[in-house]
């Protein structure tokens, strides 16, 4: 019997939510129509530190359409303990409590909320709220703050302390070849397309529905219940579509707090949105300094790695990242030590931004590796192979898989690396110097406990559901493909539901664990439905499947099929009919350690990538063009090559931004970010992006996660900026150790 090409795991299909997105019918948090809405606009602090002495609301209240000005003085009761404000990330410290009291902890801190009949009235009224401050001395200069760097006592969840080995100090001192320097990364703001917004529907019976821009509906749900004292049943949080977040939506942002606060006070439905400038009022990628010292033999064999980094955090929380571990894990070197510290500035707490820690620490480390390779006069790719570690060199554990060598080989071949001449400034194209650089990328392959449900109806329609989010990553499509694979149904007959706190439990979406974890949960739920189907088929007169067990059958084209005798097929409908079932619904939880995962229990789990970049630099003017990038990624099994490629493309483009453009400028006298708009905070535009080739290296890995999936959200950005920086050195002979590499740093 001829069957249509089966669509399942590995099929390059379009995003199942693509049409809604491009036709504008996908509704984002601030777009849900709710009757009788009031609109809120956030008043932000003009100073970085101090106290509010007075707030004169008179002019604001006089603006036609203004209903209320909410401040710390007239807000409804909210929780006060730090514990109540803790979110899933559990950052040690005292979480920011909006409108709590008169204290100003950072510039652009929300200090009042103007509620009006229209957004425009609220916005204008907000501009006439007069605030008097008692300013206190502040410091936003990270370079100054580093003088007081420290190791936080309490560690953040997910933080891995570096492990030293050998005697790196001595080995570095003794090394015949050395490379050492301080490397820097400027502060960056996430700037997803969709700005933070929340719509709160006030039902009048003590319950609320909240559409929020967040990476985790259940995280926001728990936060709102805890902060406002709602019973959990009275709050429902929805985020069916999220216009990007890059980590800025991992923690509940203050607009959702303010929206619910206003709804409570006014007992009405409200919407609070941020404008682009206000997207600079909260999360940002920490500024970083990394001191790296490498020692090597004349052969290029590394003998010492010393890696010390400091990243910025606020005065009130210790945001930590895994910055220094990557280099220690990735390179075979007998002596290595590392130290990680944070330094406080008077800004909002820094936050996870795409590949937090690795995008900083691995990237800067890979810039140092390039310098070491040049010291040793070894080709930078060869250098990485000479010091290749098949095992996790920091923990001494094997990886569940590490196809980085293959990534290097395939990437180099696609790029044409063998044509490279080693000498800086030795390749050119007309007035432009040509540079080729490479780097390694690395990220964790993570898995988080996740539940999902699957519901099959007699008409052959399957609905799979999980409270996870799709922040543009393709979760809807992943769920659909896994369900299609497991139950042998075409995607058209499958609906994926997500982004709803009422759905089966999922963690906040981030860290690239979504596809692996949600996929595994959906697979389990679908398998459970399959089992029920098989049992139901037993009720069919004559029992066509005999006493077949799950291992004896497969699910194909909406039928249960005997593996041994594929002509024996029982349509799902027949089985359900025989058992008098109108639907089958199952919920399952995928927790770490099931399936083959136990074998990987004591192994390291990581994704890797080999990035090759070509730049062309105008010799006199320092204008840089990134003309080519090849990113060869080893990330286990690829569920959907199409959306997977998009993930990597997005990461690489963000890496170009990190290399050349992205930087938020603080005015240290005012303690305030100054280029807080899209005109002056530069991200790459079309003209900055040329040829990007993505290669997925074959890397079967049944131990890493149940589906063999490692995740792709972050790996695309890690190391990309290093490949570009290294290419700029190769082109120009100039080492720039601080990102972004803007024209002024190249010019001389």
């Amino acid at each position, binding site marked *: 019997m001829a069957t249509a090409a089966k669509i399942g795991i590995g099929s390059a299909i379009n995003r199942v939510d693509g049409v809604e997105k491009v036709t504008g019918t996908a509704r984002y948090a601030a777009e849900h129509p709710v009757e009788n809405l009031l609109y809120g606009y956030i008043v932000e602090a*003009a100073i970085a530190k101090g106290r509010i002495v007075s707030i004169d609301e008179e002019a604001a209240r006089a603006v036609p359409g203004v209903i209320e000005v909410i401040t710390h003085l007239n807000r409804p009761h909210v929780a006060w303990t730090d514990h109540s404000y803790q979110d899933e990330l559990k950052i040690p410290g005292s979480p920011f409590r909006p409108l709590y009291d008169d204290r100003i902890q950072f510039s652009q801190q929300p200090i009042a909320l103007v509620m009006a009949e229209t957004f425009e009235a609220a916005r204008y009224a907000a501009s006439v709220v007069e605030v008097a401050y008692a300013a206190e001395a502040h410091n936003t200069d990270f370079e100054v703050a580093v003088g007081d760097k420290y190791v936080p006592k309490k560690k953040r969840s997910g933080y891995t302390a570096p492990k030293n080995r050998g005697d790196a100090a001595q080995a570095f001192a003794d090394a015949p070849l050395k490379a050492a320097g301080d490397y820097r990364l400027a502060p960056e703001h996430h700037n997803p397309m969709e700005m933070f917004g929340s719509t709160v529907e006030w039902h009048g019976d003590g319950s609320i529905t909240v559409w929020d821009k967040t990476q985790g509906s259940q995280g926001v749900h728990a936060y709102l219940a805890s902060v406002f004292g709602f019973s959990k049943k009275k709050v429902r949080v929805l985020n069916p579509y999220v216009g990007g977040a890059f980590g800025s939506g991992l923690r509940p942002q203050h607009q959702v707090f303010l929206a619910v606060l206003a709804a409570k006070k006014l007992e009405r439905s409200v919407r609070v949105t941020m404008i682009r400038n206000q997207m600079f009022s909260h999360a940002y990628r920490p500024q970083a300094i990394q001191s790296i010292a490498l020692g090597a033999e004349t052969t290029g064999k590394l003998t010492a790695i010393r890696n010390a980094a400091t990243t910025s955090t606020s005065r009130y929380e210790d945001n930590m990242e895994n910055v220094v571990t990557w280099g220690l894990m990735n390179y075979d070197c007998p002596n290595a030590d590392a130290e990680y510290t944070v330094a406080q500035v008077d800004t909002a707490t820094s936050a996870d931004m795409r590949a937090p820690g690795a995008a900083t620490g691995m990237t800067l480390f890979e810039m140092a590796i390039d310098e070491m390779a040049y010291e040793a006069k070894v080709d930078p790719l060869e250098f990485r192979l000479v010091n290749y570690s098949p095992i996790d060199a920091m923990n001494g554990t094997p990886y569940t898989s590490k196809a980085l060598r293959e990534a290097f080989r395939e990437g180099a071949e696609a790029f044409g690396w063998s044509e490279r001449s080693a000498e800086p400034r030795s390749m050119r194209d007309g*007035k432009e110097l040509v540079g080729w650089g490479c780097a390694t990328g690395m990220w964790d392959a993570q898995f988080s406990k996740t539940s999902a449900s699957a519901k099959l109806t007699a008409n052959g329609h399957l609905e799979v559901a999980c409270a996870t989010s799709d922040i543009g990553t393709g979760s809807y499509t992943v769920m659909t493909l896994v369900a299609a694979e497991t139950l042998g149904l075409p995607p058209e007959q499958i609906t994926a539901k997500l982004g709803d706190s009422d759905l089966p439990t999922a963690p906040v979406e981030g860290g690239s664990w979504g596809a692996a974890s949600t996929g595994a949960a959906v697979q389990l739920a679908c398998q459970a439905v399959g089992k029920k189907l098989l049992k139901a088929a037993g009720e069919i007169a004559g029992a066509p499947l005999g006493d077949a067990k799950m291992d004896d059958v497969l699910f194909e084209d909406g039928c249960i099929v005997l593996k041994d005798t594929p002509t024996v097929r029982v349509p799902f409908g027949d089985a359900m009919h025989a058992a008098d079932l109108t639907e089958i619904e199952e919920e399952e939880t995928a927790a770490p350690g099931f399936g083959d995962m136990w074998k990987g229990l004591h192994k390291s789990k990581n994704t890797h990538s080999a990035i090759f970049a070509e730049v062309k630099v*105008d010799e*006199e*003017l320092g204008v840089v063009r990134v003309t080519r990038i090849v990113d060869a990624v080893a990330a286990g099994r690829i569920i959907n090559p199409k959306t997977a490629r998009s993930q990597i493309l997005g990461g690489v483009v963000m890496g170009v931004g990190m290399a050349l453009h992205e930087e938020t400028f603080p005015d240290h006298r005012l303690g*305030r970010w100054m280029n807080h708009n899209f005109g*002056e905070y530069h991200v790459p535009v079309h*003209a900055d992006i040329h040829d990007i080739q993505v290669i997925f290296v074959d890397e079967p890995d049944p131990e890493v996660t149940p589906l063999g999936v490692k995740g792709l959200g972050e790996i695309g950005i890690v190391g990309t900026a290093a490949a570009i920086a290294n290419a700029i050195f190769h082109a120009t002979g100039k080492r720039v150790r601080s990102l972004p590499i803007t*024209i002024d740093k190249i*010019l001389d």
Partner: protein
Amino acid sequence: MNRFDYARPASVAEAVQAGAGEQVRYLAGGTNLIDLMKENVDRPMTVIDINRLPLDAIEELDGGGLRLGALVPNSNTAWDARVEQRYPLLSSAILAGASPQLRNAATNGGNLNQRTRCYYFYDVATPCNKREPGSGCGAIGGVNRIHAILGASDQCIATHPSDMCVALAVLDATVQVTGPDGDRAIPIADYHRLPGDEPWRDNTLKPGELVTGIDLPAEDFTQNYTYLKLRDRLSYAFALVSIAVVMRVEDGTIAEARVALGGVAHKPWRSTEAEKLLKGQQPSPQAFGAFADALLAGAVGQGENDFKILLARKGIIRALKQAAEATPQSQTDKRVA
């Protein structure tokens, strides 16, 4: 945005009459004015929408020049066949700016009158003499990577952000205005001004005056010209430094050269005195370098923008070379010619 009165006159006379009041703004494409109003930087009491005025044509002038109507969109100007053929520099400069969407909405009159992009000017929580006279200049001693190296004052170091105006400066354009006191024509060199101790005044337009058009004299700079824009990304960013050049080369020597810089001062920066150095010279790095030094005489950095002096010098030399060799900078291929 505050509440304001709104009028949409059909004739220039009505517009000018309406424009005579207090705190009046003319609204053209709105790509700058509306932003400023939303940010509460500009709070007009009356907005006069001039989009119905009959100023949307490009017309021939006696003697072979062109008049660009104030309301002609930047895109239409750049792609107009007469402009492309007779003033390719102007097309090039316009296309170097903003994005296609913005250029479609932006008008010639609006482009002339657009405000600075100084970060402080746009942020009402910070001091700025241009926005709030007497409040101080936030950029001096602050974040000033994009600020002026020439002609600044101790009151203001802002730059004029336009690309189009830099081309107009070397084309010796004339701005046609009308107002309560009648019509007048302002040479482009006198249109924008230096900040001095009145940084809130960007130009010499008097209150209520309306730009009706921009006149381009008949010139033949169709071979030896270029617009070179250096910026923080390859498109859709304001100039750190830009250089407009037109040149006449006769028998291998420079018969005439005009050069203006964008992104470096409160107005397009040009020195006819310095240009004399080029006259009669053969194109050479030395001649171009000497000219660059003369044009940049008196340039001072503010700290973060010190690099602009060197960037400008190198950019001038390259742009002169591009013009002399008749290899103008492409605005689509971002490789520097």
